[in-house]
């Protein structure tokens, strides 16, 4: 009990608190979910808010969101003690639990995303079903659902449906990720998690990581396919990335500041955390290296009109840092909240092993899988070249 300040407690952890129950997998899960939400936001900026400059990546970001969505639940499944019972979450849900929403929100969102992709690519699918042969022809023909209507009226209908779906998708994406933040923010037993700001911070950092990953993949894909990168598109993405980053970093810092200023009973343990277990991962890497540097770099390219080469380089460099920043943020939240015992006077370390079930290798594999899927999706539904416009 920290409110008896004149006591000096020596270290002690509850005997059941000697273990980190939520491992790297639970770091990866909100990270991948965040990438989904972030990529979707970009596509909605074009489809709903008509940001024409984002057109080159509007389709790509949808495929990216879908690729990551397919693997968002994999780390969770790998973490569960009984993955074979995972569907219990939809069979006998307990609606007072944040996780029980996952099954429903996740599947609804997956359906919505698939629908949107279908409508966006419908014309292409019909085109390919006529151009290709063999298995691919069968694949595309099945996807057309036997309807080959590409009349102007039908296209107008498609456009309308896409706008509606994208519009529904924005609150859905916010919910999908806001709920992940809620999952942590609503644990009153844990002072490092328990804050109403948590869902907002998760959402903003999701947007940051999603846009950063989109920039990175877009640049890589363009170089790889030897196509021109749209200058307006990158400049616009830079602006959005910067805006979300400012909001994200401000809220993250505000949270710490409020805790510090109040110096309530939580601060005792959080102060210790920040000075020890989280000193490098939070203060040095997340805040100083991965937040402040991109904040300044993006600020410079957004305020001054520099040459496109410099802008592109800064954008790539900042995106890379921000992809790490958000991963570190997930780490610092998930693992940071478990470094201390519920006694608040005992601490423990966490060093994931390379080969263990929920270790580093598993993390790398799970993270590479969606990238491969995104690559395949882009081969099946080419969208980055200019002559393949919707």
């Amino acid at each position, binding site marked *: 009990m920290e409110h008896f300040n004149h006591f000096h407690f020596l270290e002690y952890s*509850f005997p059941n608190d000697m273990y980190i129950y939520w491992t790297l997998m639970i770091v990866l899960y909100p990270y991948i979910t965040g990438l989904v939400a972030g990529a979707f936001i970009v596509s909605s900026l074009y489809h709903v808010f008509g940001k024409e400059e984002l057109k080159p990546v509007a389709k790509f970001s949808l495929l990216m969101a879908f690729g990551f969505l397919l693997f968002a639940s994999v780390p969770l499944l790998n973490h569960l003690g009984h993955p074979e019972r995972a569907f219990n979450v939809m069979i006998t849900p307990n609606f007072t639990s944040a996780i029980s929403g996952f099954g429903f929100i996740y599947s609804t969102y997956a359906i919505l995303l698939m629908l949107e992709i279908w409508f966006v690519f419908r014309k292409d699918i019909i085109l390919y079903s006529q151009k290709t042969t063999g298995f691919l022809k069968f694949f595309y023909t099945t996807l057309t659902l036997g309807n080959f209507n590409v009349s102007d009226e039908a296209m107008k209908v498609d456009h309308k449906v896409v706008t509606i779906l994208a519009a529904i998708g924005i609150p859905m994406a916010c919910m999908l990720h806001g709920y992940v933040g809620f999952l942590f923010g609503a644990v009153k037993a844990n002072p490092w998690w328990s804050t109403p700001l948590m869902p907002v911070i998760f959402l903003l950092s999701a947007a940051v990581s999603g846009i950063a990953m989109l920039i990175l993949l877009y640049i890589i894909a363009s170089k790889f396919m030897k196509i021109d990168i749209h200058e307006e598109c990158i400049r616009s993405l830079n602006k959005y990335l910067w805006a979300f980053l400012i909001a994200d970093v401000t809220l993250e810092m505000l949270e710490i500041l409020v805790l510090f200023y109040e110096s309530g009973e939580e601060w005792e343990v959080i102060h210790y955390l920040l000075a020890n277990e989280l000193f490098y991962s939070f203060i040095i890497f997340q805040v100083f290296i991965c937040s402040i540097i991109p904040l300044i770099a993006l600020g410079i390219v957004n305020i001054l009109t520099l040459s496109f080469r410099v802008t592109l380089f800064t954008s790539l460099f900042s995106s890379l840092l921000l992809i790490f920043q958000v991963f570190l943020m997930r780490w610092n939240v998930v693992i940071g909240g478990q470094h201390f015992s519920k006694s608040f006077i005992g601490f423990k370390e966490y060093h994931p092993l390379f080969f263990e079930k929920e270790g580093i290798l598993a993390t790398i594999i799970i993270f590479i899988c969606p990238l491969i899927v995104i690559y395949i999706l882009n081969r099946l539904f080419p969208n980055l070249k200019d002559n393949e416009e919707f």
Partner: protein
Amino acid sequence: MEFEKMNQQSRRDFLKKFIQGSTALSVVLMYPVPSFSTEKDKKKKANTNYVYLVDIGKCIGCGKCVKACRTENNVPADFFRTWVERYLISFQHEVFTDSPKGGEEGFQPKKIKGEVEKGFYVPKLCNHCSNTPCVQVCPVSASYKSPENFILVDKERCIGCGYCVQACPYGSRYISPNSHTADKCTWCYHRITKGLQNACVQACPREARLFGDLNNSKSKVSKVFHRENLMVLKPHLMTNPQTYYKDMAAEVI
């Protein structure tokens, strides 16, 4: 004629099945509504009010309760459904706390900085909170509150996500390395329903642990409950624990 009859029969059967099916479907569609039917719930609530009292002043830290719990409930090594903490407080208000092996083998003498001004043992176990955060967060309804207000885990439904372990402010839960499901103190539900005492209560040679029904005026707990100076752990979290501590010092975490 015969054939027609049969045909009619099967048609009727089909109709019947169709109606049954559609009723079932509509029920199914309506199903995922959390039950707010208080009328029904009231019937299910048992007319009992079980509480667990811990008398800190009586505990000698022998750890027999921890041992009894482990044998009775097959608690995996290095995990605890109940444990005993030792507090040694020096004149300079330095608080030394430990619980070697959960206190199972008793406590060895410990030197602390300065003279021990005050010392005591605190047995800990699941608080079976009325307003419990662990049941609240269980996504699959595997953690539940029995009609007698025991907080239990359904090992057949638990997916082992560990959310309840995170949500418990007292460290009473763990993921069992044997069953890969959440595990915790059950207040020996299987013994209480058989009319026996909890294993830990029975093992305690000092009556430092008491368990009983407050609604039963003959029970020991009902005789002491309102007369003693009782406290609960982390009251500010509003979990409303049903495990009470007598004469608890401010240093207890």
